[in-house]
């Protein structure tokens, strides 16, 4: 069974530029999560989707971050414009339902200069 796929793996941009990340969850998983992991910290949930609907986006900085999950399968996370403090690894995870084990992708390491 294929795992969670993410691209790109690495991205370097200048502040005020825009960037987008892509995630393809495990086939059949209804729930998809985006996390931000700053160096030296644990993952912090940004947004949770159930199929193509948003369950929780309370920690998403909506003035600059947006995410969508069209058709309830893959998802994109966008940052526009980026700030230096957005430098982090962005992890995508999926689960069959909203409970229990989450399966993580390898992450996208973003560096904002």
């Amino acid at each position, binding site marked *: 069974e294929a795992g*969670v796929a993410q691209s790109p793996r690495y991205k370097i941009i200048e502040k005020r530029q825009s960037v987008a990340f892509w995630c393809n969850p495990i086939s059949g998983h209804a729930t998809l999560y985006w996390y931000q992991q700053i160096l*030296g*910290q*644990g*993952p*912090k*949930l940004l947004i*949770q989707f159930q199929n193509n609907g948003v369950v*929780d986006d309370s920690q998403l900085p909506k003035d600059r971050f947006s995410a969508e999950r069209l058709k309830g399968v893959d998802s994109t996370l966008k940052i526009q414009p980026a700030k230096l403090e957005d430098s982090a690894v962005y*992890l995508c*995870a999926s689960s069959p339902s*909203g*409970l*229990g*084990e*989450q*399966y*993580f*992708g*390898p*992450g996208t*390491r973003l560096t904002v200069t």
Partner: protein
Amino acid sequence: TQLLEQSPQFLSIQEGENLTVYCNSSSVFSSLQWYRQEPGEGPVLLVTVVTGGEVKKLKRLTFQFGDARKDSSLHITAAQPGDTGLYLCAGEGGAGSYQLTFGKGTKLSVIP
């Protein structure tokens, strides 16, 4: 805000030694998960503990959930270099939420 405090933050030991890492909170969780994360990869689930006082063993790893379901520990016996990584605990179901709240992790280095 629910917080999970993990200690120690860093741990460097020789191959063959034993170690324990801790995960503490003031919140009650319906379950607690332990993940291991290697550099450049996402976290991978090791175990889920659900019942207060529960002990689970996974080869040389022993996980315990506190009686009050607020804290947990991970004990590794005879550590090996392959155990090197970031160990994260994550609480589920605190304060009526089904989300996972992650600790900052314990970075373990096992020196051959």
